[in-house]
């Protein structure tokens, strides 16, 4: 996690000094602040030596200097880091702060008006209604988003986030905001990105903090210059990921006309679906393992997603402690592989959406990406582009497949499919 940035920004330094000074005076408590990620902090603490309150206050001050507060979010102006290219300061201000309408009727405080009651003011997914929802609302601070066009470890594009806002997430409590004007959608997209960047920078700084010796501050008056570089590195690391998202979008391979719903004859489509059926139950795509022999989503029920896994240490006392720190609604729920017979697709129902789920996997959930044939090693098992479209056709046909169809024979059948390799 080392990145080189050489910058000199007097504004930044001034802000940092000011925040450290304010922290020392102790008047930082009166203003509304973003919560610290206490679960992550606790998880990275030395079991015997907890972080000192001064260390955490210092971390909070540093984050305040870089990102401001929920009422006054701050966009770091530093062309070498480039936060200002990712989030628009004016749009951010429109989304931030308390809810009010100006005399022209323009809405302000959009995030708190539309999102905060579920996702929380800090974007921690622990808003006041969170406990009543299943699945629980998303915590943005890990920087992980499930439904996107880019692979695991990469960020969603602006259009991925827009799509989630405009269409909602079917099968969950996330509604569609299609009635909002374009600039409000854009403002919310930028604000979610902002909260996510802030949260991920915080996580990276906590890792740095846990590397320091006992009681040492992340940035003190003595280490101001070193600390500045540390923070710039941490911010630009996260910002670089967001900046490159567009270049990481998976471009779908051409669909053969015999598997394309627009051009294939009924017979061709039936053959494509049958091929997909065998792929679904085969050991290359391996879908049946988690989605179940009958695709009802009952194949693997004991997993947790990345957000919940963090709260699941084996020790029950520790688990209870982390749950209370997270202010996360109880109980922690298992990850459910999707029931593919419902015809409800959280990330979208278009063939393209399902293509992205298969080729990228689902980040944060355990859904892996399908193994494609390695062009450098075509002898090794893997899926071809047309296999992928066959599988998509089968998945899309599942809600209409009769349940009276006999189940795939047995475990040994799955294994036998590897024989022709």
């Amino acid at each position: 996690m080392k990145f080189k940035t050489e910058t000199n920004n007097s504004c930044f330094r001034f802000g940092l000094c000011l925040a450290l000074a304010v922290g020392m005076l102790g008047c930082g408590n009166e203003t509304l602040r973003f919560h610290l990620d206490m679960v992550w902090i606790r998880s990275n603490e030395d079991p015997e030596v907890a972080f000192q309150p001064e260390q955490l206050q210092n971390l909070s001050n540093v984050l305040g200097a870089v990102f401001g507060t929920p009422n006054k979010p701050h966009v770091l102006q530093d062309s070498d880091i480039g936060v200002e290219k990712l989030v628009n300061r004016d749009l951010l201000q429109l989304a931030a702060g308390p809810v009010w309408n100006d005399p022209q009727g323009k809405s302000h405080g959009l995030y708190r008006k539309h999102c905060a009651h579920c996702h929380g003011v800090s974007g921690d997914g622990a808003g006041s209604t969170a406990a009543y929802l299943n699945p629980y609302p998303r915590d943005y601070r890990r920087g992980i988003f499930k439904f996107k066009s880019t692979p695991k470890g990469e960020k969603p594009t602006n259009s991925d986030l827009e799509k989630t806002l405009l269409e909602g997430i079917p099968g969950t409590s996330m509604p569609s905001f299609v009635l909002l004007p374009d600039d409000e959608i854009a403002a919310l997209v930028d604000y979610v990105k902002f909260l996510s960047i802030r949260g991920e920078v915080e996580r990276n700084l906590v890792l740095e903090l846990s590397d320091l010796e006992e009681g040492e501050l992340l940035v003190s008056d003595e280490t101001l210059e070193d600390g500045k570089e540390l923070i710039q590195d941490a911010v630009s690391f996260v910002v670089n990921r967001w900046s490159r998202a567009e270049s990481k979008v998976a471009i779908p391979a051409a669909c053969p006309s015999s598997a394309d719903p627009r051009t294939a004859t009924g017979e061709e489509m039936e053959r494509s679906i049958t091929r997909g059926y065998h792929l679904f139950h085969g050991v290359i795509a391996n879908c049946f393992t988690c989605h179940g022999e009958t695709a009802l989503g009952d194949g693997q029920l004991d997993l947790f997603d990345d957000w919940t896994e963090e709260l699941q240490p084996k020790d029950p006392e520790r688990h209870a402690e982390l749950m209370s720190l997270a202010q996360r609604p109880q109980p922690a729920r298992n990850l459910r592989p999707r029931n593919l017979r419902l015809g409800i697709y959280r990330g979208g129902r278009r063939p393209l959406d399902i293509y992205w789920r298969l080729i990228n996997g689902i980040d944060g959930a355990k859904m892996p990406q399908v193994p494609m044939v390695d062009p450098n090693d075509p002898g090794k098992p893997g899926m071809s582009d047309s296999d992928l479209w066959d599988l998509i056709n089968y998945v899309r046909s599942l809600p209409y497949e009769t349940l009276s169809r006999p189940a795939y024979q047995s475990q040994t059948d799955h294994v036998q499919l590897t024989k022709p390799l």
Partner: protein
Amino acid sequence: MADSTCALRIGGAVLFFAVGSRKILWRRKEVLDMIHLQIKYLCLLVACTASTFSQIGWSAEWGNLKGRFIYDGSPPAPKKLVPTKDVAFCGKHKIPDERLIVNPENQGIADIVIYLRRKPSRISPVYDATATAEVTLDNIDCRFEPHVQLVRSGQTLVIGNKDAVGHNTNFTVFANSLPNSLVPALGSFRAKLTETEPRPAKVACNIHPWMSAVVVIKDHPYTAKTDKNGYFEIKHLPVGENMQFQFWHETAGYVRKVTGAKAKVSKKGRVKLNLDGDFDLGEIKVPPAIFE
């Protein structure tokens, strides 16, 4: 008359000055040539000496660090893991619990990771040959082989599957961008590692939740793991450099509260060293409590 004498004198003086200065110039050139010659010889001498030294005193430039980790208590009995998925295949194999392996005969702890925390200013050329090598992490008999793999950024990890069932390989990494990919039966995929990771990365197969492995990804080759008797060695470390090593274990995290090391180990399981040759940390005793 006086004027002509004067002019002659001046001319003579000028002539003398010119000749004299040329002589001086010539002499200066001679001197410079001699100096050059001396410098050349000196350089040659220095080069010869240096090459002789580097051949004879090679180990003076690089040093090895070794040591051994032992369990400071009665070793826990080895455990077996019970497969809950693909039982028809995975159930045929005895799957050991590798999250803590203590040798019952000599109390050596296997798979403790020792890594240099920051990239040093010099890396031995011995490691050039493997800088972009392929390193394997295989799924065999429903477990990962090896259980702990050491990788240098720039190398490629080849994740293979020798089993008749499909696996997936899911990394928990911070800096690298690695897919969570299915690995079909008898298949494989490649992942190029470009960044150094702040912590050893845990690897899981979510289809078979009992499977776990660790991949240590650093931007230098100075990482090691203990063998089944608890021994480790990091070779060709730069001499005369301030270095800090971290001890880490999958179950314990930072290997803390150790005793018996021949150097001061910090509360976070770190040791600061500046080698002047080979160094043996000796037998390091690890308290059982940190594995609980």
